[in-house]
Each structure stands twice: as C-alpha cells, then as structure tokens.
C-alpha cells in the first residue's frame, strides 16, 4: 500500500565522477522515497551530494559524472479517478539520458528549480520565450496559446504586471523575480514532481521568505510533490513532510519531519540538530560537529561518519559499511547502532 502513493523512489543510487585525480563518489548509496503530493526535504552539508542526486534524477549529471549503480523509479500516474489510482513504473536509470523518453519526462513530469537564479536564465532570450519554450515543447499548443499560458504562469507565481514582464530580459529582473520565473517555467507543464535545489540560498532573507511562501501555496494548489534540497534546517522544518539526511553521498536517515526533529536516531542527525540555535533555550555555546568533512577523494572505510561520531565502535564502524535498515514505519537509518541483529 505504501508503495502505491509514491511518486519517486531512489534506491541505492551511486553517481561517481571519474576525474584525473581519482574517482569522486558524489552519491554513494542514496535511498529515499517521495510520496505523491508531499514535500521531501534533503538536508546535508555542502558537498554531500545533494545536488548531484537531484541531477541524477533528471539524468542531467554533467560529465565526467556517471550513474554507476542503483535505481531511480518514477511512478507515472496513468489515471486518477479517485477510486483507482493507476500508475506506471518507469526506471529512469535505464533510459538514455539524451533519449526521447527521458526528454519527454524532463521538464514536463519532473522539473527543476536551480540554486542560482541570477544565472539560470539565458540572458539573450526574454523570460516569456523561455517559459514558452517549455510549454510548446511538451504541450501541443501554438505560440499564441503558449504566450497566454506563460502570462498566466507569471501571474500564478505572483509576478506584478505579468503582461509586461513576459517581454522582459532576465537582466531587467531582480534575483527574487528571476527565481519566480524559474518556478513558473518548472510548473508550466504541471509536473508530478518538482526538484528544488537550494532555490533560496542565493536570495536575501525577505525574498527567501516570499519564495518559500509561494512554493508552499503552489504546492497546496497544484498537489505537485517536491524534493526540496537545502542545508537550512529551519527551511526544512517549515516546508517539508519528510526529511532525508545526507552525509558524504549517503542518505543516513529518512523519517517524517517530526521524528527527525524530536526523535533523531542517527548520530549525525543528532549532532546536526545540536549545532543549531533554538529559541527559548538557556543561552549556551552551540555545539559544532567535531572534526571536518573528509576529503572526497579519500572517504574513510566503513561508515563514512565514524571519525566524527561520538558513538563510534572501533573494529566495527571503521571496518564495515552499515546497512540502511527500517526501524519504524517510514523511518530508516544507516548506522551500526541499529543493526537488525541488535534490535
């Protein structure tokens, strides 16, 4: 039953970059699931593979990166008439990244909003052109109808004077407005899944709040599922239904948002939460996670977190990779403390 209302399941995904200096295992065993119409937050430090995981889903990992293992299953909704909720299973990892099949999904059923609004629009085309590009590509409409829909989309993302903005060039808009345009492009074909890769990181706090509001409202209106990638736990708490915590290319814990914040199991998640300030708590020094993130070319053997883990068990954690095991419905952890035998 739980499988049925999933829109995306990523299973032990591995995306490696083969550079001259060596192999970077950017994503090395990431598993998570996105439920239809819900928001999954992926949280982790810079360089933990969040963005590469997102690019892997769309199959737009830039070379020399390559998906070397695992599966990405997309459940395409065929008929949704209340009673029967039929869906078709598509394995995105088996598709050719430049093939027709993948391209018809990209931008139409799964779309993406990028981190840098200042550089994610092509400077030589109007924003209208770029919204219409997606619309005419995936929907069978002529230019006039596409233009009409583009203006509607701009209105929907809260753009003032959409009829004028549609003919503006990106350099005439501010960062926040450009990000609204990107959201308009991403939602123009009514996708079942939207991947938002740190969409507010480059914006100031006020604009960030507006964009978050907008995304939450649009999500409620359209019922689009969202994968929200961020390193900001506050945003996670505000936006998400489920959370996946990533560390060095691996998802170390996934649970609903309350369990993550109030009952975190993985030592890394616990450490992460101790490192953020809380209102109402007696003022004391924040507790950073000890040590540093290892060099991506030399990830430690065993559990990648053991050199920084306060519960590290010598002889086990520095030797064997922990399995990713469910410990409660919808709650999975990758840690030797929760081995199946031990439970």
């Amino acid at each position, binding site marked *: 039953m739980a499988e049925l209302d999933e829109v995306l399941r990523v299973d032990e995904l591995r995306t490696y970059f083969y550079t001259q200096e060596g192999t970077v295992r950017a994503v090395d065993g990431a598993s998570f699931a996105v439920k239809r119409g819900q928001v999954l937050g992926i949280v982790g430090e810079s360089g933990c593979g969040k963005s590469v995981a997102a690019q892997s889903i769309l199959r*737009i990992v830039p070379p020399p990166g390559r998906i070397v293992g695992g599966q990405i299953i997309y459940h395409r909704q065929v008929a949704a008439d209340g009673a029967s909720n039929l869906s078709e299973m598509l394995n995105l990892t088996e598709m050719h990244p430049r093939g027709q099949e993948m391209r018809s999904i990209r*931008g139409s059923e799964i779309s993406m909003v990028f981190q840098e609004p200042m550089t994610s629009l092509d*400077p030589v085309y109007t924003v209208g052109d770029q919204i219409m590009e997606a619309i005419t590509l995936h929907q069978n409409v002529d230019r006039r109808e596409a233009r009409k829909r583009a203006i509607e989309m701009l209105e929907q993302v809260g753009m003032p004077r959409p009829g004028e903005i549609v003919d503006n060039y990106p350099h005439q808009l501010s960062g926040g407005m450009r990000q609204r345009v990107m959201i308009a492009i991403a939602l123009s074909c009514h996708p079942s899944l939207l991947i938002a890769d740190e969409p507010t990181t480059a914006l100031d706090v006020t604009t960030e709040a507006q964009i978050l509001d907008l995304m939450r409202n649009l999500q409620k209106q359209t019922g689009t599922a969202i994968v929200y990638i961020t390193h900001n736990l506050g945003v996670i708490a505000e936006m998400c239904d489920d959370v996946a915590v990533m560390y060095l290319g691996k998802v170390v814990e996934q649970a609903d948002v309350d369990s993550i914040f109030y009952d975190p199991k993985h030592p890394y998640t616990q450490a992460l939460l101790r490192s953020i300030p809380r209102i109402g708590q007696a003022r004391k020094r924040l507790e950073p996670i000890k040590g540093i993130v290892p060099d991506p070319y030399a990830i430690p053997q065993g559990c990648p977190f053991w050199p920084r883990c306060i519960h590290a068990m010598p002889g086990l954690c520095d030797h064997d990779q922990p399995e990713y095991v469910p410990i409660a419905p919808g709650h999975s952890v990758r840690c030797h403390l929760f081995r199946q035998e031990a439970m």
Partner: protein
Amino acid sequence: MLGYIGRRFLYMISTLFLVSVVGFLIINLPTGTYVDFYIQRLQNEGTHTSLEQIEAITKRFALDKPLYWQYGKWLFGFVRGDFGLSFEFNKEVKELIWERIVYTVIISLATLIFTWVVAIPIGIYSATHQYTLGDHIFTLVGLIGLSAPSFLLALVLMVIAQRSFGQSVGGLYSPAFVDAPWSWAKLADLLKHLVVPIVVVGASGTASLVRMMRGNLLDILNMQYVQAARARGLSESLVILKHAVRNAIHPLIMLLGMSLPSIISGATVVSIVLSLPTTGPMYFRALQQQDMYLAVTFLVFMAIMLVIGNFLADLLLAWVDPRIRYE
C-alpha cells in the same frame, strides 16, 4: 535602440576625423614639402621641370598655404575621391588603387567566409566532444595552422597544387586568361587560383577562431542556464545551438569587426609570395618609398574599414545581446 545606433555613428564619424588628421600629419612629417621631393626626383631622372608644372602642383595641394589649409584642401579632395598623386608611379592615386582594392576585397571576404564556415562548426564539435580523439586531432591541426608561417605554407601549397594538380600557381589568372575578356571559363580559372590564397591566408585565422570558439563554448556549457535548458527537456542539439552557441559567439563578433582592416593590409607577405595584385604589397612599397599620398590613402582606407567594421560589429552585437540593446 535608435539612440544606441546614433551614438555609435557619431563615434564613428569623430574617429574618422581624428584618423584623417593624424594621417595627414604623418605624411607631412618628413622635412621639405611634397613639391621639393617631386622636383628633386624629376631632376634626378634628368627630366626638365617646367615652372608651370611646379606651380600646378603647388596650387593643387595648396603648398604655399599654412598646414591647416593644406589639410582642408586634401580632406575636401579626399571625400570627393581625389586622393592625390603617387610620385613613384607618377599617376593619380585613385587610378592605382581601385583595381587592387576590388581584388583584395574579393580575396579577403572569401577568406573571412571560409574562416567562419570552417572554424565555427569545428569549434562547436571540439567543445562538445572535449578530450575525445576528434578534439585532439583538431587541436593538433589547429596548432600547426597557428604556428606555421604563412609564407612557408604558401610555398608548400603552391608546390602541391602544381605538382599534384598541374595547376598554374601565382597570380589570379592562368597566363592564357590574363588579358582575355570576362567569361565563365575565366571566372572558373579565377576561383581555382583563389583556393591556395584563401587556405593560406585563412589558416591561422581559422585555427585561432576554432580555439576561441571551443574555449568560449566550454565556459558557456558550464553555465547554469544551459543545464536549466536541458532540465526543460530540450534536445541536446537545441540546447547547444539555441542557448550555448548564441552566448558563446559574442567575443567572435567583436573580433569580426576588428578583422575588416586586414582586408586592406592583410596578408602582405602571402600576397608577395603568391604575387597577388592586392593592396598589401603596394601599401608596403608605398611606405618604403615614402610615396606619401599613396600611403596615406591606404592608411585612411584601413581606418575607415576598421571603424565601419566596429560599427557593424556593434550593431550585430546589439542584435545578438539584449543587454547591450537596452543599456
């Protein structure tokens, strides 16, 4: 947009004016007036110079008047197509240069088109297939083209063309056609003779354009908006051509504007080696012989080409890039 064009046009006119002043000053730098040189030359040749001749020249170039007057008179003549006298050829400059300018423009434009048509696709291929065998081969060939001296390349190609294809080389026509009236056969002969000069003159330009196109495109391919276009579901060829190439081509357009003056001065050495009747060798000789009116005519023509080229490049750039249009 109109304001932009108007501003660029004003820049163009004022630059041309300045160039004409500097050019005129340069021809007046050597001591003595033009007429002194002329008389001395005629006397050296043992010809008797009549007072009338001297007076005619003095009057024509206002040599008895102050410098600014001379300048005004020269400029006035120049804009009406009177470029002065070449004292080396003892002919009007305008009689000397027109035919050469026509041939030069033909060769240079053909070279320019050749360069772009060959270089842009190779650049795109190299960038999209970075570090593949094809990219390495084009890089190697390009480096050879860039570093081989053009006169050497000219000689080598001349030998190949003659030995392997039995073609007469050098000049623009086979001996049989030089004085023949225009016909299809003569045109075909001309085109055949153009191949070697175009390849030789275009070789280094093509190579550097390939490198530039490749470098720019590689930069642009890393831009977020290229990835965003992919994420929209566009086909790879549309992503490359519509979004990446259009943005990568700006610097090349600037270069195009700068390359117009080389239409006049360009490929002097190659022209001498291939004995082509272009302006290059003549300009070179005019400078050597201090044939001042001839030299300054070429100089001003080059400046005009440069300024017009830049003006066209500015217009083209405004057409390609909205950020310039709306400045």
